[in-house]
């Protein structure tokens, strides 16, 4: 009975603590574009945009790779040395702490992105939405890949054999039979990966550049909801400042919970 109490306790604590800012800004908190601690004006719109831009971009980058890994492990090579090696490596990818991803991104990806930015004639910050999305894409591949593999493995053999017997090549079977059949399982994997990406903090904080303004393009520095909390929570002295940050936390909690429940619901539907 401890778990529901814990969840409800978390929800209530977040709501109570963000009450000052809820009362002060109301709905303007979500659409307000200005985040200015000095004048106690708090609008989280830039961070919400930053969060979703980063999460979706990373999902788009990760899809070809996670899909390839799912098909590799779930269809082409199911047993043997090579697939089990690949699987352990991908699992390891999910075991690396996010702070290490951020650290590595800071010293490895940032120079690369900076070089790309020089070519495109945009201000070469090196840090920004693109860098954060790249790191995030690497981090979420294992989640969608493992769910995708499970979904592909559950496609019944006779459906595939029927397609083969009609003269279809393997590519056609995968494209026209297996992927549609396992579709909702794969998509639920993407959902869970998205939930992961929205809530990811440390790696993103280290490479996103921490800007309070609405991002102009994918190269510009930005901030996500999680990274703004990580950066400013210990600096927040005024009560309204703290409660605004907690309200961002509340939003984050609600969004990730929603995305996760949606993902589980899709899995549940698929398994039935």
């Amino acid at each position: 009975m401890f778990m529901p109490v814990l969840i409800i306790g978390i929800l209530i604590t977040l709501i109570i603590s963000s009450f000052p800012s809820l009362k002060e800004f109301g709905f303007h908190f979500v659409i307000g574009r200005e985040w200015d601690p000095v004048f106690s004006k708090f609008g989280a719109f830039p961070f919400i945009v930053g969060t979703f831009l980063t999460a979706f971009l990373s999902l788009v980058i990760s899809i070809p790779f996670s899909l390839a890994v799912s098909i590799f492990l779930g269809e082409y090579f199911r047993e043997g040395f090579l697939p089990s090696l690949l699987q352990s490596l991908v699992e390891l990818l999910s075991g690396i702490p996010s702070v290490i991803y951020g650290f590595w991104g800071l010293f490895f990806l940032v120079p690369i992105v900076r070089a790309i930015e020089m070519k495109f004639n945009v201000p070469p910050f090196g840090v920004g939405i693109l860098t954060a999305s790249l790191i995030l894409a690497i981090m979420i591949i294992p989640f969608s890949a493992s769910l995708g593999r499970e979904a592909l493995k559950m496609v019944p053999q006779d459906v595939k054999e029927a397609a083969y017997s009609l003269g279809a090549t393997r590519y056609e079977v995968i494209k026209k039979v297996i992927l549609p059949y396992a579709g909702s399982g794969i998509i639920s994997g993407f959902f869970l990966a998205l939930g992961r990406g929205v809530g990811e903090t440390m790696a993103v904080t280290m490479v996103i550049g921490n800007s309070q303004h609405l991002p102009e393009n994918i190269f510009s520095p930005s901030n996500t909801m999680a990274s703004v909390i990580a950066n400013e929570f210990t600096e927040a002295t005024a009560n309204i400042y703290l409660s605004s940050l907690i309200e961002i936390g509340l939003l984050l909690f609600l969004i990730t919970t929603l995305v996760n429940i949606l993902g589980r619901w899709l899995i549940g539907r698929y398994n039935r």
Partner: protein
Amino acid sequence: MNGQHQVKSGRLVKDKIFKALIICLSFMTTLPLILILFSIFHKGISSINWQFFVNIPKPVGEPNGGIANALIGTVLLVMLASVMSIPIGILTGIYLSEFKKSRVSWFIGLCVDVLQGVPSVVIGIIAYLWLVKPLHHFSTLSGAAALAIMMLPVIIKSTEETLKLIPETLREGSLALGANYSTTIIKVILPAGVSGILSGILLSVARIAGETAPLLFTAFGNPFINWNVFKPVSSLPLVIFNYAISPYEDWHRLAWGAAFVLIMFILLLNLLVKLGAKRWKVQF
């Protein structure tokens, strides 16, 4: 005739290209992992020596700074978090596997799923509001509580999954011998599932050992060695974060070293789980 043949070979070529593409992309996925591990080994090993483990950090410019404070802090945090979360986790797992079909356990299962998805930084806020604010300063205890909340879903899930796999006959055998319900669970069900539960605990430790976000405003970090649970404490991921974003070459070196130690610890735990899963497995 000829045209038909060409169409067919076109399809076959497409098939081959697709397979090659899948293999290529799959192995490209492992590229970042190899790069990350390589740079950590490359830069981390050179900064590791005896002083690195026994000294506390020195000001920039002085040689022989170490991360003893962070090592002790991580051990302290992980132990405290385990003490808090293991009993609750195992008990909840037992409940979920014993009462599979009740509405209550469906709801608890949903809560576990939700908790697993809660971003770590939000859990940090919660620990801050529950334990830092009332006590008026950052503490090891609050950091450990945040980590304990993160450990719970992993332990619960693995306990539940393991116990569900134990055959019904085992339980019936015990009950038939006259053992009552609690004896059956403690003496028969739990020992049979010990490998799964243990590997769940190890995995959860591997998960939280690298967590930074919930510690930023709970354990906070401390440049000195600290054993007091009501005082702030440092940990390996915190050290990596703080030194990585600092502008000093010396501190980057310490951060690479700390990253190396952390990665080795996590790899070791994962390896232990893999080996243990084989060795302790009870066959039915």
